[in-house]
């Protein structure tokens, strides 16, 4: 029943995203309109894929670092992606894929650095060290980014900053295709790790006693969740709160079994971002809000409500 409702909601969000927009498309022409075919449909699908990726990555990382406040950017990926994007603009790299590829490279660089730091002092990925390393790398990347911006006078940098706040205006069938080919592998790796993630919540040693190969699970989850997040950042900038709020809502509805939580977080994340992007496109049409602002405006109140529920429970 819950699943049916969630799937219905997911489909409804896609229908909404296709039907609504700054220019009016009569219902009869939905299937023939080039606006729908070339703009709204790929954009809706991309929003859904990115939201799903962020929701799943967030839920997995929360289990990995045993902290319900973790989100996909906790480990410095947003800072790395921002640095990559701004560097690409400052260096005048041209081409439609220059910005996403540079952001992706920056995110992967941050991921590698945080991962390496997470191994300091032993062979294990210690959650506390990971979080500290993520914060440190993110802060460093942000400092370099700001330095680049202040040294440069390119007007495109404003665009880079707006892009970093998240936006799906770059959506095309090409980006949808890239994401549709790219995301299934890391998603499958995370689903395969769902049961050991349940055990990880008990701590490393209790999880080992119950049969989990803790090091391998941690490495896989870390790499898969980071790859998902890096791709999401590359095609749509830093869209906050989806990876934090959605796993939380799904945890209250579905409990903490990651076998059900991860698919629910994917559908929930996709739904939220498809709706948020629809709002971002239509709220102040013909201009657009960065979708990251919409998710934050929706996310922060929801988050405070959740926080209150927790502290009273």
């Amino acid at each position: 029943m819950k699943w049916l409702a969630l799937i219905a909601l997911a489909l409804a969000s896609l229908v909404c995203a296709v039907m609504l927009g700054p220019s009016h498309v009569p219902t009869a022409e939905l299937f023939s309109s080039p606006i729908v075919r070339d703009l709204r449909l790929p954009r809706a699908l991309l929003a859904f894929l990115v939201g799903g990726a962020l929701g799943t990555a967030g839920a997995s990382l929360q289990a990995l670092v045993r902290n319900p406040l973790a989100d996909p950017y906790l480990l410095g990926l947003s800072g790395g992606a921002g640095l990559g994007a701004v560097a690409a603009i400052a260096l005048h790299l041209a081409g439609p894929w220059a910005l996403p590829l540079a952001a992706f490279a920056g995110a992967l660089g941050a991921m590698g650095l945080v991962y390496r730091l997470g191994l300091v002092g032993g062979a294990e990925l210690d959650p506390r060290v990971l979080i500290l390393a993520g914060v440190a790398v993110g802060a460093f990347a942000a400092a370099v980014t700001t330095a680049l911006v202040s040294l440069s006078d390119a007007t495109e940098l404003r665009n880079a900053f707006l892009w970093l706040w998240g936006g799906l205006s770059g959506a095309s069938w090409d980006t949808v295709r890239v994401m549709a080919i790219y995301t299934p592998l890391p998603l499958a790796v995370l689903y395969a790790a769902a049961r050991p993630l349940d055990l990880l919540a008990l701590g490393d040693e209790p999880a080992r006693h119950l049969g989990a190969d803790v090091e391998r699970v941690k490495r896989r989850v870390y790499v898969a969740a980071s790859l998902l997040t890096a791709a999401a950042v590359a095609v749509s900038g830093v869209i906050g709160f989806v990876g934090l709020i959605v796993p939380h809502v799904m945890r209250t509805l579905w409990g903490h079994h990651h076998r059900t939580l991860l698919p629910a977080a994917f559908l929930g994340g996709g739904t939220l971002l498809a709706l948020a992007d629809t709002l971002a496109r239509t709220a102040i049409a013909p201009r657009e809000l960065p979708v990251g602002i919409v998710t934050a405006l929706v996310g922060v109140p929801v988050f405070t409500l959740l926080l209150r529920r927790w502290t009273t429970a």
Partner: protein
Amino acid sequence: MDDRLILALAGVTFRYPDAARDAVTDVSLAVRDGECVALLGPNGSGKTTLLRLALGLLRPAQGEAAILGRAAALWSRRELARLVGVVPQREETSFPLRVRDAVLLGRYARLSPWSGERPEDRAAVERALAQCDATDLADRWLTTLSGGEFQRVRLARALAQEPRALVLDEPTASLDVRHEMELFERVRALVDRERLAAVVITHQVNLAARFADRVLLLADGRAVGQGTPAAVLTRETVERVFRWPVAIEPFDDRPQMIPLRQPLP
């Protein structure tokens, strides 16, 4: 080949990286099914390290650790979890769980990554809950349990693994007398009726003496004595290991230790 021999340590020595001295030096231990062995010793004497060695979580620098005759390091965590159920000293509760779901975690090593829980898994969970008198707790949240209830649930989780051996690390550390006795009685009954092997780390010298078939007494990583409680727990040995004067009195044919009063210098 002794097929009743489940856990075996032969002359193991281990030192943690950067440590000044060995955590465990030349210790041997054999645990068979239908047998309860207690590990005794002061804080930091190497009890938990010895268990980690026995379970293949650490590799001995010297000596051998074997489980069912095969080197402990060669077992995968998954294979081992079907053989040995552990109640660790501490664990985290990062996300709230209901008791039945917590016990179901014990089935992990018997489930394939893609399939759901089978009827036999649910049956094993109910059986384990019943064995620990925890059926009534099944729908409660873990965070609402008392200390004694929580330990019952953790023992049930270990039993849901359907293991041949149980390992308990200070299982009664924060329990009152009744819950402490219940836990030891329960473990002893499992050893006698189900022929499980049990290894219990404890600071309760007197309970170890009454419930264990054998005790291994450790001091500074070395085995000071190993054998029946009566043979090991003599006044001289206990006073030397724990560095406190005691009297030893027999009760039910088992030695019982009474710490004596002594003014501090």
